[in-house]
């Protein structure tokens, strides 16, 4: 491993510790890491957008491959229309001309709605409704290859989905009091919703632990490089870790002292 790569790994571990320090309490190290992440992401996004959007889709076409004189005799002058509409978006920063920005916004929303409505209705509403109301697969009621509760296309799963969906819809029907048989179905609906939220919560916990596991894996990988005496980076790694720790602890101590002094002066 090259030394520069090792330094980047070290920086990654440092930023990880900074972020995790928030679990104790808010502190400047956490803020530093947070701002670095936001700044790097924003900067990266702007460059990606420039090189993958504006340059190939607009400037290159307007310039016909000739950056200096191409603009003057471009064969794609129609691209000036979206360019102008895009520039008009910036009028939002002016109180007097902000109304102009409604034109490109209207065009953008109009095109998006036109594209989205038929496809969304067809694929996320109609097909889902059709799947819910499809004829129950009695032939494979308990699973396609024998009894299998995990088979989401078995007749049993279809039945559970249909009953569950109807019960959950009944729960949100407030025009009739939830009493008697109707109330019982609504109660079943709450249970279905709770099971759904529970599944989402379980997956979310797994996701959060996965993030921490990934940082653990990288930290241990870094540790194997930094503290492995057989590694060429051992001494450099030791120095980086030693001074890094001292700086981290000293920085945090200074922060705590300054915060306490400020608190005391404000109370006296």
């Amino acid at each position, binding site marked *: 491993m090259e030394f520069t790569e090792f330094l980047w790994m070290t920086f990654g571990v440092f930023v990880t510790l900074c972020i995790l320090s928030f679990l104790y309490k808010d502190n400047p190290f956490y803020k530093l890491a947070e701002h670095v992440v936001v700044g790097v992401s924003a900067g990266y996004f702007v460059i990606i957008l420039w090189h993958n959007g504006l340059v190939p889709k607009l400037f290159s076409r307007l310039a016909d491959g000739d950056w200096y004189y191409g603009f003057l005799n471009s064969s794609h002058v129609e691209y000036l229309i979206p360019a102008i509409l895009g520039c008009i978006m910036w009028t939002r920063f002016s109180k007097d001309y902000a109304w102009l920005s409604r034109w490109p916004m209207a065009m953008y929303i109009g095109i998006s709605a036109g594209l989205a409505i038929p496809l969304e209705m067809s694929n996320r509403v109609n097909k889902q409704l059709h799947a819910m109301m499809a004829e129950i697969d009695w032939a494979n009621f308990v699973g396609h290859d024998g009894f299998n509760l995990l088979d989401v296309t078995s007749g049993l799963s279809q039945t559970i989905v249909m009953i569950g969906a109807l019960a959950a819809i009944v729960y949100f029907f407030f025009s009739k009091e939830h009493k008697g048989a109707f109330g019982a179905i609504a109660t079943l609906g709450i249970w279905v919703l709770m099971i759904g939220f529970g599944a989402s919560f379980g997956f979310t*916990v*797994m996701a959060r632990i996965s993030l921490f596991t990934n940082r653990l894996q990288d930290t241990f990988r870094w540790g194997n490089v930094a503290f492995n005496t057989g590694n060429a980076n051992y001494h450099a790694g030791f120095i980086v870790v030693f001074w890094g720790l001292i700086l981290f602890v000293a920085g945090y101590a200074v922060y705590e002292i300054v915060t306490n002094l400020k608190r005391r002066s404000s109370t006296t």
Partner: protein
Amino acid sequence: MQTFEKLMKLDRRWVYLLLIIVCVWSYIADFTVPILVEPEVRSIHSFIDSLPEGDIVMIAIDYDPNNLAELHPMTYAMVEHCWRNKVKTIFTSLSQNGPGMCDQALRDLTDSMALDREYNGVEYKGREIVNGIDYCFLGYKPYFAIVILGMGQDFRLPFPTDYYGTPLDSIPMMKGVINYGQCACVIDISGGNITDAWISYGQGRFGFPLALGLTGVMTAQYYPYLGSGQVFGIMGGLLGAAQYEELADNPGRAKDGMRVQLFAHMVIILFIVMGNVGYFASRRRLKQEGRA
């Protein structure tokens, strides 16, 4: 103060500390966790396994570094599985930070493919993976819905060149490849709402087989599409990735992380039970004392 009330007022930092200790211990400890493979992951693996040499799979790397932990292992396991079976791949990234993710995976996987390996008892000789012959990386374009629709007409509409600036017509594996029609399936590995667009604007509009690799947070939300047949497989979170690694006999970071998952979940369940017991017991005591 009663024990249960103390439980209710336990400083959250103790929970974090215990969780960190358990995670670190289970990561260091030397044991393996058995992986139960679910049908929705098996169907993706079987689909790729059944493809003949030279077929093309499109893989959308639609995630950013914040989802790397869960989704990178899926990409690694699946792409290596494709390449070992000599299935060609077209990559695209419709998430703004996706190209970096894809580029990193490509570099690591081309290195890994150079080595001789044995998976599920089959020996695979190491071979050089060549850009343009084994894979093509289209890159990123903004406005994913428009890009997905554009690719359905012709890949060259949104991507006249690949990520590295080579015109698509000069790339050997893209000769005769016009749109999704020439791809055996599309697999979207995503950490955001781009998946919705792949379902509505991609699969719904053009009818290609679609499989999903999702973050844990998203997974439960997309199971209805599996039941309706709109997607033929789902890999959910790190567990889905671990299942794919298990099927491909290619253990990686996901299987490695399952040990931590097991014990972390046990700690979280323990605290949930403790919190509930504390809540109900203190409520009962307050009722008995006539304070509630």
